[in-house]
Structures are given as structure tokens and as C-alpha cells.
């Protein structure tokens, strides 16, 4: 929703008829800590992809490709679930210059 609608054009009670629009709501700036994906440690088990509550682990052709920082809230579930040793996902402090 890039252009803000005047009140008469807003769907009644704000009911939304479009599907999948959660993607348009960027929640990346909620983070205080962020996951770093370490490709060299990743065993491609896709656990992080399955467990991420915000679908913020990106994958292509069945392989993890990284983290979608526009939507990742920094909850740390991916790093917690990562079974590889050493872990392929590490939580680090968010710093303003990295955003």
C-alpha cells in the first residue's frame, strides 16, 4: 500500500480483499539482533526455512540462499533450530550502519 487512500475509498471496516499482502508490510526494522547465514557451514537441511515464522529465510531450487532482512524480525528461531556444527546461522547485534 504505497499510496494512502482517502477514507471513502478505504474498504469498509478495512477488510482486505487482496491475498498475500503481508509481504508489503516490512518488519525488518523491528530487529535488535540479526541472523547471519554462513554458507560454508550450511548442510542445506532447510530447517530454518521451515521454522521461520516470517518466511524470511530465502531459498531457491530447494537450497537456502540467505535471509530476507526486510521481513526478518530477529527472533533467533532459525539459529536455535540450526543443527549443523558449527551452526550455519549466528545471531549478532544489529547495528544502525548495517541496516
Amino acid at each position, binding site marked *: 500500500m504505497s499510496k*494512502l*487512500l482517502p*477514507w471513502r475509498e*478505504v474498504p469498509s*471496516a*478495512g*477488510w*482486505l*480483499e487482496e491475498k498475500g*499482502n503481508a509481504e508489503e508490510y516490512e518488519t525488518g526494522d523491528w530487529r535488535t539482533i540479526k541472523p547471519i547465514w554462513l554458507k560454508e557451514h550450511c548442510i542445506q537441511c532447510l530447517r530454518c526455512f521451515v521454522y521461520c515464522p516470517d518466511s524470511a529465510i530465502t531459498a531457491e531450487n530447494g537450497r537456502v540462499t540467505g535471509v530476507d532482512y526486510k521481513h526478518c524480525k530477529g527472533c533467533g528461531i532459525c539459529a536455535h533450530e540450526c543443527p549443523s556444527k558449527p551452526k550455519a546461522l549466528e545471531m549478532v547485534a544489529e547495528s544502525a550502519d548495517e541496516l
Partner: protein
Amino acid sequence: MQERIALTGNEAMALALKQINPDVVAAYPITPATEIVQLFSSYAANGMVKTEFVAVESEHSALSAVLGASAAGARALTATSSQGLAYMFEVLYIAASYRLPLVMPVVNRALSGPINIHGDHSDSMGVRDAGWIQIYAEDTQEAYDNLIQAVRIAEDPAVQLPVMVCIDGFIISHALENLEIMADEKVQEFVGPFTPRRPSLLDLDHPVTVGPLALFDYYMEIKRGQAEAMRKAKPVIKEVGQEYGRWSGRKYSFLEPYQLAEAEIAVVVLSSTAGTTRVVVDELRQQGIRAGLLKPRVYRPFPQQEIKAALGHLKAIAVLDRADSFDGFGGPLYKDIRAALYEVPDRPRIINYIFGLGGRDVGLDDIRSVYDDLAQVAAGEAPEFSIRYLGVREEAL
């Protein structure tokens, strides 16, 4: 062809509910509203209605269940009173904001504390700004008629707002009165089939998000739309009241004046106390005193212009509130009426009484004393005042 029978207010509401035959009723018992859903649950159990009856564990759940059912495309109702209404508080605002056409009988009862089961208006007055339409009934006939009309008002495409149909606890809910009732099929014909906003909430090809987050980007625009719906409810309430009149012989509008056009002094009061007041008006008229009465039927939306037109010519008005605002200024009805008369150039003098709290009886003598005070205020022999407690014990002088 109408049948004339004797019913209590609760029985009349339960009968209207049965004739409306909604898709879903979810409810939790609370005195003095219990009978409405108790009777209705036996109609459901005996297959006299097609309704899915949901016995829930609280009023918060009752309203949440009918809210969900309504959003999913069902005609859904519940009923409550007092603490039950208070327990629904957060869901009331959500139902109005989601623009769901729910209908709910509210049997007015005092709020705790002290704990009390009898009639006053503190429950529904406490939620007067929740965004629900509020209609108050004087007797069992009006309770029945208002409930049937409420379905049409709520579901009008221009409105789509929930409606409370209020009656006085015990005084009306438990008192037997004669009333005229319609045949089931006539009620069905009047309310018509339910047209849900969407054919089905569970349509995977046309999904919808109900109640999305709206922060500083959209919250105000959605609330502005909600306010507009309440404004649009006014002509609909009037139209439905007229149509109901053609259909039943009993026409309804926002206000019911009695001996008001030629009056100099008048009482403004909601619900059953209007009946007591009408008797006193008749007495005073026989004595040559130009007394009148205004009974507002619709409180939300507030019929400001109609009130101004009905009361503007009077010398003095007493507004009787069956709920206190505890603000040192006056009861809720008093403040709204007073504000409505602000634009009248030579405005009437206005006084305010808080009465009947916790079901404290208000008799003819109480109302006579109000008109006595009014006569003095109108003559300029006594000052205007706000908040006088009618019928409260004072120390002997």
C-alpha cells in the same frame, strides 16, 4: 392479522428471536436477561428454529462467537445485561469497527457495586460510545417491535452496524403485559433473507482479511467510515420505523412526544419511566398545567435535530437519567439534551435528576415533584440546577 397475547418482556424478546430465526445464537445467562436465551435454547433444542445455538463460557465468548459467525456470513444474535455487557466491552468496539450487523437485546440492570440485580441504565450508558446503535423500549410491545426492526436497521447495506435493543430489567423483562404479535411468516417477510457481505468467508479463490492492523496510516480513515455509517443509520431507522408502521399499525421514529406541542414544561426520560410520567402529564393537563413528555427511543445515533425541534419552544425541561456520570456535571442524557439545545436562541431552562439507580422505584409522587420543581424553574422562581437525586433519603430537617 395480529394475535393479542400476554407476555413478559423477556418472553416477547425470545418470541421475536424465534420468529427472526437467526443462523447463530451464542449466549451466556445473566439475570435479568437469562430467560431470553433460556427460552430460545429450548426452541433450538425442539427444532422450532434452524439456529445453531452455542452455549459458551462467558459473555466475552458469546459476543466473540457471534462476531465470528457474522463475519463468516451468518445472521447472528446474542443477549445480555449488566456485568455481562461490561464483560463484552472490548468485543463491542470490535463488532462496531468490523461493521457487523449483530443484534443484541440488553436487559438494563445496574452495574456492581454494590452488587445489585435490578434495573437502571448504567450498563448500556457505559457503552454509549462503543459504536452500537441503541434503541430503548418502554414496554413489552416496543421490546418486541424494536427487536424485529433492529435486524433490518443493522443489516441495511448503508448501515452495517450492530444494534442494542434495551429494556428495563424486571420492570419490563419480568412484567406480564398484553401485546400484539405477528405471525412467524410475516416477521420472516419483514426481516427478509440475510445477505452476507461476502458469499463465504472460506472461499479460497477470494480470500479476505477481516480486522487487519491499521496504525497511523489507516486507523483514522476506518474510524471515519464507521462514523459515517452511524450518520447513515438515521434515515434508515426512520424508514424502517415507517415501513413497520404500515405493516403492523405501530409506527416508530426517533422520539415519542406526548402532549408536547402546546406544553411549557416537559420531562425527558427513556424507557419504562415514560409510562409513569404520562400518567402525571394527564393529571396536570386536567389541572390546566401545560405539561408534556418526550421519550427518546433512539439514543445512538443521537437525534440532535429532532430533539432541538421537539423541545426548543419549552420554558423548562427536566431530564431524568437512570445512570450517573459521577462527573459533578450531570447524567449522560442530560448533557446530550443540553448540548442539542445550545443552538436554540431563547433556549429552555434545563434541570437534571438522577433517579432509579439499582432499581429504586420511581412513583407518581416522584414525577409530580419533578413537575412542581419545573413549574418554579419555568416561572423564574427557582434556579436551573444539574444533578438532583430523585428519591434518595435525606436527613430529616
